[in-house]
């Protein structure tokens, strides 16, 4: 009876371990490959992937929350992380482009605050020609 209980317990534990291992393996497979579905009606497999996200950090400062919430609506904030330092004129033009060309929902006062924050993290003096 005791032996039987151990066996049952061992089987349960082993199954759980195997199940978890299979899950881990499946997760790893997901991150590297696409999920494909085979269907007799089509000769090529359909595909599906899950995109990973890597949100970057930004230093505290006036305008940080506004910048994150307004700009992050449409695109990754890595668009800013990857930029070199630019003068105020360039950042103003970029924010203006997002509003006028792409229709970003940012009003004038907010735009000013966002530009100021961008200058505080990626700003530099104007270039002299």
């Amino acid at each position, binding site marked *: 009876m005791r032996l039987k209980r151990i066996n049952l317990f061992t089987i349960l534990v082993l199954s759980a371990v195997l199940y978890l291992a299979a899950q881990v393996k499946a997760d790893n497979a997901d991150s590297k490959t696409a999920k494909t579905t085979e269907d007799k009606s089509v000769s090529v*497999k359909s595909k599906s992937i899950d995109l990973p996200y890597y949100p970057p950090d930004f230093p505290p400062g006036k305008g940080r929350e506004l910048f994150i919430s307004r700009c992050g609506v449409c695109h990754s904030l890595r668009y800013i992380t990857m930029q070199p330092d630019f003068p105020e004129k360039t950042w103003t033009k970029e924010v203006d482009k997002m509003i006028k060309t792409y229709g970003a929902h940012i009003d004038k006062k907010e735009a000013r605050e966002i530009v100021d924050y961008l200058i505080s993290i990626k700003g530099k003096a104007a270039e002299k020609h």
Partner: protein
Amino acid sequence: MLLAATVAAGGLTGACTNVRQPDDFQNGSIIKVRDGLSVARFPEKEELIMLTDRPPQLETPLFYYRQDLTPNEAFFVRWHFSGIPTSVDLRTFRLDVGGHVQKPLSLTVDELRQQFEPVSLVAVNQCSGNSRSYFTPQVPGGQWGHGAVGNARWTGVRLKDILQKAGLKPQSMQVTFAGLDEPPLYSMHKFVKALDIDHANSDEVLVAYEMNGEALPLLNGFPLRLVVPGWYATYWVKSLAKIDVLRGKFDGFWMEKAYRIPKNANASEMPENLAKDTVPINKMNVRSILVRPDLSDLVRAGKPFEIEGIAFDGGSGIAKVEVSLDGGNSWNVAKLDNADYGNFSFKRWRLAWTPTSAGNYKIMTRATAGDGKIQGLQYWNKSGYMRNGIEQVEVPVV
């Protein structure tokens, strides 16, 4: 103490000096990244240089160009909008062909494979803004190094065969191409590109369903991608789902406002004097990229070393590549590989080098195309497009 010194010396830009850099993914990788970037792994991809994650923009590390064809897993990725297709069901997917045609089509991928003659060709796919990060003065935009380019064997059907099946009506002028990707706001213009009818009807423009013998990765445009050999990748519409023939000229945002270059020989302008006349970007110019030495390659005085790289242009082929080891004072002719993948492909080249003494060497490379065009000075434009000036890489010899 060190912290205080950094802050004091930092000034305006010092604000970000002490911020944790997003290098979590860089640890343990052999891939070197520029400031503000990381390495990351995406589905169906190897570890690549990540510019952005939403939408994904991923750069190929240079060492992948030590082979003729760039593996699908390492091929660069560039999308415009966050609404990219992450799931495509081929039971419902259709390529619609319409507009100024006699018989609109709605084709499954299987129908494309079965009803048209399959064609294969090797061609370079290069982002308009490849190498943008190296412009002086620097310009805003995707801060690419040299890795927004790849060379693959594309298999599919000729666009002209599809157009013929649909039956072009007289006076067709342009053909537009749209994919499954969607902008995040209604106020944005869907990504649509156009080609002139003669170009669309040329032999080399394909609708590809395979890349290097396999279905395309989703991030590279599964299940179909327009292949426009010799032209910048902006025309190679991914997840192609709609082709429309127009009687007139397409006036969409992505042709009329974006991807424009100054209308002059070198697509050049000055920061304080921007070009007034512009045209849509088109054919690629000639360029060469040094691929080796790179990363941890150790070059030793008195030991033979093989310098290698790639060269390509818009389809006239590569006639010659020269390498300077002394900052441009003298030039040596590199040996072009015998492998012939056609004029739209990378041409790989090598130069045997045994540095006589230790020190820093200035390596420069210069390609000449089949049409006689040769790399020279680097010109500037506000968008950071078409970079092809002679680059100089400083290489330490020990």
